[in-house]
């Protein structure tokens, strides 16, 4: 067993940024430094062997969590209150003393947590904030590397905010529906909750997900390359119910959705989508929405880019034309190689990624591994996921974990015996329309990389992700190398 100080320093190598102009280089270097710090902090939290997702009991004593737990025991024994150690607990957890043998002492008294549970003090995964300049206009990414199943815990659902997270009293929040409506309405939350409800599982993906990977393998972990997608169970009112209530006037074609945050976020939505599967949701994973997800009310547009799912929804204005707000003109538009920019690029096309093994993990040695990951499509169900271990030459069928739901993360698995030689792991999915997830090169060939001075392009990169497995078991981002 080695201690942290005796461990060889892990060098995180990144692409050389010296060829870029000074401004671009500064931005890239800031981003790289932030991920480097994140990885360094995570190493402190993790066990010594760093063997992917597998806990190593031999090393856990020297991990920070193990150390803190040991301290708590010592303090408890010495008569100090265990609560003193709780400051060291990971977010969402409370630090408790760890008994030598949990069968020989009573556990914690029941319901002393105030009636709302916490996660284990040994679980440390957290959302990671992208290093934007302001803390109010920024985004955080879901730790997909540790994800299981298809549902994202509400506290780990990715975030994108343009004006911080508002604190809204639901008793004072209202939704006003007006414009080309025969009977304009103002609804309280209590009004909205009286309507017949529906519950559905859906992913939400930011169209900026994977934006760093257009030109080269830029970031290290699947959290940072793909963590702007999450799936929840959502409950609310079909928007079609509300449109029936207010009565749509002839000629109406678009609806402006507006949030009650400091950005007063707005997007124009074609009315067809509003009549089909759009929802006004107030619940997520069986409880009220998290504030970061739009409490008390958010628009949910299944399969459409995350920015359109307006949070903290306060107003719907029915109109004949789109409103051309900032977020649908200067942002969330995709310049393609003819020099023009695609606008209203709503659909999130089929995409998949292997979450284990993925970047910065290390396989302990040759042998059996269950390759797993998630696939999703804004156009419906995932029909099939294929795995390649040789960079796309040969494809094997992966097993899909049921239920396979439309417009939802779908977990896939593939049993793999690693022989210890270099491997290039890839997944590609096919959705129920027959669309096959393209390679990044396919997308670049169609769209070019002249749309952004730094990254080549930003939105809608649903290309195949490559992970390289080195002979020592280390896993690195292999985009553009297959």
């Amino acid at each position, binding site marked *: 067993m080695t201690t942290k100080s005796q461990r060889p320093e892990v060098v995180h190598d990144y692409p050389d940024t010296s060829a870029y102009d000074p401004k671009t280089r500064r931005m890239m270097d800031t981003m790289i430094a932030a991920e480097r710090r994140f990885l360094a902090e995570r190493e402190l939290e993790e066990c010594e062997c760093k063997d992917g997702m597998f806990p190593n009991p031999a090393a856990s004593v020297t991990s920070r969590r193990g150390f803190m737990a040991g301290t708590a025991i010592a303090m408890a024994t010495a008569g100090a209150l265990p609560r003193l150690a709780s400051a060291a607990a990971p977010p969402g957890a409370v630090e408790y003393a760890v008994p030598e043998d949990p069968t020989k002492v009573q556990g914690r008294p029941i319901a002393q947590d105030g009636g709302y549970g916490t996660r284990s003090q040994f679980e440390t995964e957290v959302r990671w904030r992208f290093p934007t300049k302001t803390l109010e206009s920024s985004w955080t990414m879901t730790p997909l590397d540790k994800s299981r199943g298809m549902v994202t815990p509400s506290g780990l659902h990715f975030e994108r905010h343009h004006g911080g997270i508002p604190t809204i009293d639901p008793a004072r929040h209202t939704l006003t529906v007006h414009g080309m409506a025969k009977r*304009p309405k103002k609804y309280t939350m209590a009004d909205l909750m009286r309507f017949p409800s529906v519950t559905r599982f859906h992913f939400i993906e930011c169209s900026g997900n994977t934006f760093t990977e257009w030109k080269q393998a830029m970031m290290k972990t699947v959290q940072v390359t793909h963590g702007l997608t999450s799936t929840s169970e959502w409950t609310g009112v079909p928007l079609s119910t509300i449109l*029936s209530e207010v009565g749509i006037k002839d000629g109406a074609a678009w609806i402006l959705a507006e949030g009650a945050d400091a950005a007063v976020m707005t997007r124009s939505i074609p009315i067809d989508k509003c009549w089909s599967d759009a929802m006004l949701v107030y619940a997520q994973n069986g409880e009220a929405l998290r504030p970061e997800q739009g409490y008390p009310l958010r628009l949910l547009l299944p399969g459409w880019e995350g920015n359109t799912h307006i949070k903290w929804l306060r107003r719907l204005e029915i109109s004949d034309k789109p409103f051309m707000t900032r977020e649908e003109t200067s942002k969330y538009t*995709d310049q393609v190689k003819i*020099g023009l*920019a695609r606008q209203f690029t709503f659909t999130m096309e089929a995409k998949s990624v292997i979450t284990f093994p993925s970047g910065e993990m290390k396989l302990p040695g040759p042998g059996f591994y269950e390759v797993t990951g998630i696939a999703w499509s804004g156009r419906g169900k995932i029909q099939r996921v294929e795995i390649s271990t040789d960079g796309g030459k040969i494809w094997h069928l992966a097993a899909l974990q049921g239920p396979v739901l439309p417009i939802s993360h779908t977990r896939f698995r593939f049993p793999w015996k690693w022989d210890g030689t270099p491997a290039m792991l890839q997944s590609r999915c096919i959705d129920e329309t*027959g*669309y096959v997830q393209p390679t990044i090169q396919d997308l670049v060939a169609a769209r070019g990389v002249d749309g952004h*001075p730094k990254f080549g392009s930003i939105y809608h990169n649903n290309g195949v992700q490559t992970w390289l497995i080195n002979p020592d078991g280390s896993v690195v981002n292999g985009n553009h190398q297959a």
Partner: protein
Amino acid sequence: MLMRFFPTSAIGTCVWLAIFAAVALSVPASAQTFDFGTAPTAAEIAAINIDAMPDGRGLPAGKGTPSEGKAIYVDNCAACHGTDLQGVKDAGGAPLVGGRGSLMSGSPKKTIESYWPYATTVFDYVKRAMPFNAPGSLNDNQVYAVTAYILYRGDLIGEGDIINAKTLPRVDMPNKNGFIADPRPDVNTYR
């Protein structure tokens, strides 16, 4: 038997027919609408109906000029967007002008001047979300004035031009024809 309960006079029949008619009409209507919520007053809608559309709909009364806007810009915007309107890197403020003609260069500089297709969007966005440290704090005249100042610095209007609900939609934006519809899927990988 049943007929005994119905009045037989002509007037009474008319009353009953009217009641039947009312029931017949109202049943389907009430089945379609729950009628929850309340009708918002005009004032309630006006208080939050802040958007401005490219054709000028939604733009409020008021006006402003570049020279009026300069002082407002310096006080409220320059800390993040710079006195040169080129953005202050450490504050996270984007450049607002410049970059005209750069969109096809491979290193596009996307600003209000070079990229935004509608001048009304500047008014809409400043009114709803700016300044970042005090969003929604400028009155309509101030928003018109600061919009005018930015447009003037982008060589989109003259120094003496008055920007109001009539003139703002007429500002000719260089990239107004720069957007196309989304044709995706654009990669033919279907099976």
